[in-house]
């Protein structure tokens, strides 16, 4: 006696969080059943395997029906088909859009294209996530990316509005979109020590300091891109390293400010010119799409690595960057004060986040 048809429909849609997680993790019904069995559910509730199977199938079917709506969360809240209490809806959305940082780290800076999707099986092998879960998360990235691609305004807020995500998750998605837009190279071996969290934070700092939205709320350009004009202007900063006088003055200003305040004063003094050149050059490369990929590599190789080898502490770095940024105010021949500080604010925040002692 086999059950051909076996369904349960509640007026309030029944959601089992444990089964939802199993579904999100990409398990099949039978895998999910065996996982639930391992969890000792049978003993606790004194039921039979067939009941568990039927229950799991039922939940999976519900989730499949819900998936269509989850692709557009505001619809989930407006639809009439499933009566789900709002807190539950929020939990469903949050669960669906949650992602594994390891996966996101792998995908950062890659094009969210079909080609990348095909490589997901390797990613799946590396991260230990099931391919199905990888695909769902990849599709989520792509969907969010597409949805906000053409929109104007602060990225994180847009995402929050369109996908009803909790603010921290929306910010992470904003970072992913930002990376997908600017395509920084993050896959290099040298950069592996940076976690998704580090890079997402950097993206947020860059967006926060550099993008249009940061300057005027009703910005004309989407936030995913650093505005062209800003990048073009960065060329003006070249004078800080190309003009020998300015460079020397800058150095003496910083040195006088930091003397006795940081433990690595001598090393700083020796390295100042190299550091300053590196910091400015990173900015000079930003307007060139081909060179922009090296942004993080340059920061790590030319700034962070030397500091680390000299055993700078994070505090040292912070103090240095602080006076390094503010010192040009006293530089007579330097006219791009605002531009400089805007640029350095972003860079400093990134560096501080990226510096692992």
């Amino acid at each position, binding site marked *: *006696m*086999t*059950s*051909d*048809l*076996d*369904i*349960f*429909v*509640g*007026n*309030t*849609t*029944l959601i089992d969080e444990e089964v939802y997680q199993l579904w999100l993790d990409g398990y099949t019904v039978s895998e999910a059943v065996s996982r639930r069995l391992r969890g000792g559910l049978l003993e606790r*509730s*004194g*039921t*039979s395997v*067939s*009941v*568990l199977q*039927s*229950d799991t*199938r*039922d939940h999976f*079917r*519900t989730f*499949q*029906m819900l998936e269509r709506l989850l692709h557009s969360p*505001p*619809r989930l*809240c*407006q*639809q*009439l*088909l*499933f*009566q789900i*209490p*709002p807190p539950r*809806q929020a939990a469903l959305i949050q669960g669906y859009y949650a992602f594994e940082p390891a996966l996101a780290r792998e995908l950062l800076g890659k094009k969210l294209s079909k080609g990348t999707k095909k490589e997901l099986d390797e990613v799946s092998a590396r991260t230990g996530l099931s391919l199905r879960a990888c695909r769902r998360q990849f599709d989520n990235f792509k969907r969010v990316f597409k949805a906000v691609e053409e929109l104007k305004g602060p990225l994180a807020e847009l995402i929050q509005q369109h996908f009803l995500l909790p603010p921290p998750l929306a910010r992470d998605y904003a970072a992913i979109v930002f990376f997908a837009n600017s395509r920084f190279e993050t896959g290099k071996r040298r950069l592996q020590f940076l976690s998704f969290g580090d890079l997402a934070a950097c993206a947020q700092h860059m967006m926060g300091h550099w993008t249009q939205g940061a300057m005027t709320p009703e910005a004309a350009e989407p936030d995913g891109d650093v505005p062209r004009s800003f990048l073009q202007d960065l060329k003006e900063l070249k004078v800080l390293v190309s003009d020998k006088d300015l460079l020397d003055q800058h150095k003496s200003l910083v040195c006088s400010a930091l003397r006795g305040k940081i433990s690595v004063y001598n090393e700083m003094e020796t390295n100042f010119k190299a550091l300053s050149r590196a910091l400015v050059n990173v900015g000079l490369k930003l307007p060139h799409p081909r060179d922009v990929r090296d942004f993080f590599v340059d920061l790590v190789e030319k700034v962070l690595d030397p500091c680390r080898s000299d055993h700078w502490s994070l505090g040292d770095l912070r103090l240095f960057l602080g006076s390094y940024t503010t010192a040009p105010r006293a530089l007579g021949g330097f006219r791009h004060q605002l531009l400089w500080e805007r640029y350095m604010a972003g860079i400093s925040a990134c560096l501080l986040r990226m510096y692992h002692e």
Partner: protein
Amino acid sequence: MPGKLKVKIVAGRHLPVMDRASDLTDAFVEVKFGNTTFKTDVYPKSLNPQWNSEWFKFEVDDEELQDEPLQITVLDHDTYSANDAIGKVYIDIDPLLYSEAATVISGWFPIYDTIHGIRGEINVVVKVDLFNDLNRFRQSSCGVKFFCTTSIPKCYRAVIIHGFVEELVVNEDPEYQWIDRIRTPRASNEARQRLISLMSGELQRKIGLKVLEMRGNAVVGYLQCFDLEGESGLVVRAIGTVCTLDKLSNTSAFLPACNSPSKEMKEIPFNEDPNPNTHSSGPSTPLKNQTYSFSPSKSYSRQSSSSDTDLSLTPKTGMGSGSAGKEGGPFKTLLRQQTQSALEQREFPFFTLTTFPPGFLVHVGGVVSARSVKLLDRIHNPDEPETRDAWWAEIRQEIKSHAKALGCHAVVGYSESTSICEEVCILSASGTAAVLNPRFLQDGTVEGCLEQRLSWQPGFFSIGSEKGEVDFFPQSQDSSSLLGIEEASPPGCGFCHIPYDELNMPFPAHLTYCYNCRKQKVPDVLFTTIDLPVEAIVIGKGCLIQARLCRLKKKAQAEANATSISNLLPFMEYEVHTQLMNKLKLRGMNALFGLRIQITVGENMLMGLASATGVYLAALPTPGGIQIAGKTPNDGTYEQHISHMQKKINDTIAKNKELYEINPPELPEEIIGSPIPEPRQRSRLLRSQSESSDEVTELDLSHGKKDAFVLEIDDTDAMEDVHSLLTDAPPPSGFYSCNTEIMPGISNWTPEIQMFTAVRVSRLGNINLTNQTLNKNFNDLCENLLKSLYFKLRSMVPCCLCHVNFTVALPEDELVQIAVTAVAITFDKNQTLQANKAPTEKSQQRASTDNEEQLQFPLELCPDPLASQPSLPAKEVLEGATSQTGIPAAQRATSIDYSSFADRCNSWIELIKLKAQTIRRGSIKTTASLDKTSPLAEGYLRHRSVPSCTNSTVSVVKMTPLSFLPGAKITKYLGIINMFFIRETTSLREEGGVSGFLHAFIAEVFAMVRAHVAALGGNAVVSYIMKQCVFMENPNKNQAQCLINVSGDAVIFVRESELEMLPVQPSTVVSQPTSSGGDVTT
């Protein structure tokens, strides 16, 4: 011509993409009512069109208003080819036709397509202006209220309960018309949906006419069913109970607890008594006739205006069908009479109600049922559905005579059903024979009654408790307040007393003196189809008891088929009864409530499923055990086996008693001073043995005269039976289940509810099936289904599954379909414990009543006929009523009145058993938590807050098969919801197979019900029922089709907690912005 229907199409959202090229849709809307159609403009290139149309106005007959649904079709405009339909919305505008219900229908409706399901939503506003034409009741029956609820609706008071009303209309099924061969499935489905909508509208109107004729103003317990007879047609039939209801517009006058005056006067029902009487117990004035503002005209038959289409329906002459003519006359005269015999004169003294005002039910005889096997033939002339009428009339007549045989003049908890397979149809009717208090049945006395009730009731119930206390069981633990109960014939047991004549019993039975009052005789087992009366004294908790049975039958044609079915029926009835009895005893209980026996016919088998709620009634004797006897006593190992089984059974009984907290007072018989049955009977109590139960030939369902059951194991079949008895697993801890409205023994419900529908279709597999394997399979199917429900709902523990309603269908050879609808309600365990501890001293007996139930009939407490003597003890009332039944006698029996095949009809009366024991002297203490709520100020929520269209929040709509919502008060009934949907697919696999298909469809049905309720301004559906779920599949063709029919009452409820905070000032109340669901919003 008294109505103007106004419709406005506001907007659409989430429409499907109809133009692949642009990924957009050019949508417009057609609004059709009757033969008039309006169109909106095309809103180009949008999935969220904003039509914001003008008001489309239809000037129509109120008759048309009642019959026709408003039909809204959303289409995609296509310049070059035909416009594509996106989907439809049918809106029943009936709720707008009576003044007390909704005033506007406004909200988002799912756009439904029978092939694609829900495709987006549309926002619609509908209003009706009824002209103030005094003659409007002649042609139509606008204004008659309909309720699915099988009790007096919460915010009403029953002035008179008139009685039974029935009607049926027939038509050809569009699915079987020649045109169906050339039209698309969609067109065919829509024709069917529309036709059924029309037919139910017409049926309702006709019922309404009968109601007016009987001078009632409402139908309660309205049950409408469809019989899909295939080739031979489509029958829509309905039964109900006609009442004159009075709105409790100022409950405050009656209930001291509530002091919020109503500002509802504007909305007085058209026939409401304008001077609602209060505490004054002055001389009564008879109910005035002028309260009925309409003129009850006899000429309600009208000629059809041969209006439209080839779908022209059924009798256009109201009198043409049914027994209206016969009923109409007697009723008019009846209403003038005050004697009980009046009731007996009625053609069918039936009541579809299952819960009654206290005092209404005097005695309960037992279950009466009748079945009849019919061969369907084509309905040649839809205007004269006499055959179907005659069939039902025959069955009703039989029920009536069964009731008479039990000494009862009425049948309560009455229902009718059919099971159809090919051209064979089993018609079934069942109910509970009862003796009723006639005072509710006529006007004239009503006013007096009311006065009487008010003045007399406090004296009766609450000596010592506050004056004006209206609670049936006073909360007060003060024993003095309970003295009255002992003196009077206790309400907690009166209904158990036998109504029939002891010396002239229709069947052999055992009687004992009532364990509660020791004055009247009671049977030892009581089976009923009604809900547990509120006043019943129950020990412990109840539980769901099911009997399940399969019988193979040969495939046959026509008459031969009908014959074999007729021959099988009595055996099935017998076995179902045996199983019920065994399972009842196994649980140590002595009464069944809500009994529903369903016999389903399939190609090659019959299935029987009986569900009921078992309880231990304090008034009835303790049930004996079950004893097993072997046929071959010499065999040692066999003996051992038998004794092993016996032990298992005894253990189960003991365990069940503990589980359901059944611990009746164990009293030595000596205490009892009252006459005791002859010694023979007493000794039997101890020995408990008897002859075999194998009396199929005589069809004596009594199993002999004994206290304990003896199950004789003479072959493997019997062994299987015993095994199957023991396989019924008790629900996991924390779960209880029942199929009645309220669970005896649990009263502290918390507001969390979860209504659900579960459907399973199983293949019975191999062809060489025997009855035994079938039985086992069927049993496993039901048990597994229950188990999976418990598992699914485990997060709600402690909870109770209430109103568990199983429906069995045999859609094809070897396929069994079971659908269950029920509601899980959580309750507070701690409070239960407290409640258990409290009433220890005086008695263990506890009347478990539901808060809601108590409030329900605050005014109808045991009316006394002699209005002028408030001090008259209730005992006399009850005795007076029963005097004609003579001396009770010990009896218990069942008989099968099995007529020949000639009339293809057989039936059985099923009843009662009796046994003697004792009752302890002393007062009965009853506990029931006091309903704290103050009734709602009516004005609250009148003005439906934010129309759902203006914001994006989806309001929560609760659904429940019960007539109440725990922890909430229903403040307004908005009209009945009666919806019929067809869904078909030609891409079954793509939609997730049969499970995916049906899962989506049921979810869609729920969604559409909720949307309609929300549009009416309601926040819940009560008395929800899925009357039909016909599922057909053809996996080879990748196709499936399903028909679902649901109904219920749309209501507005307010949480009790909110009630308490409710401001007294009406102005602030009215401006309350959110709907009372409270937990709404997104």
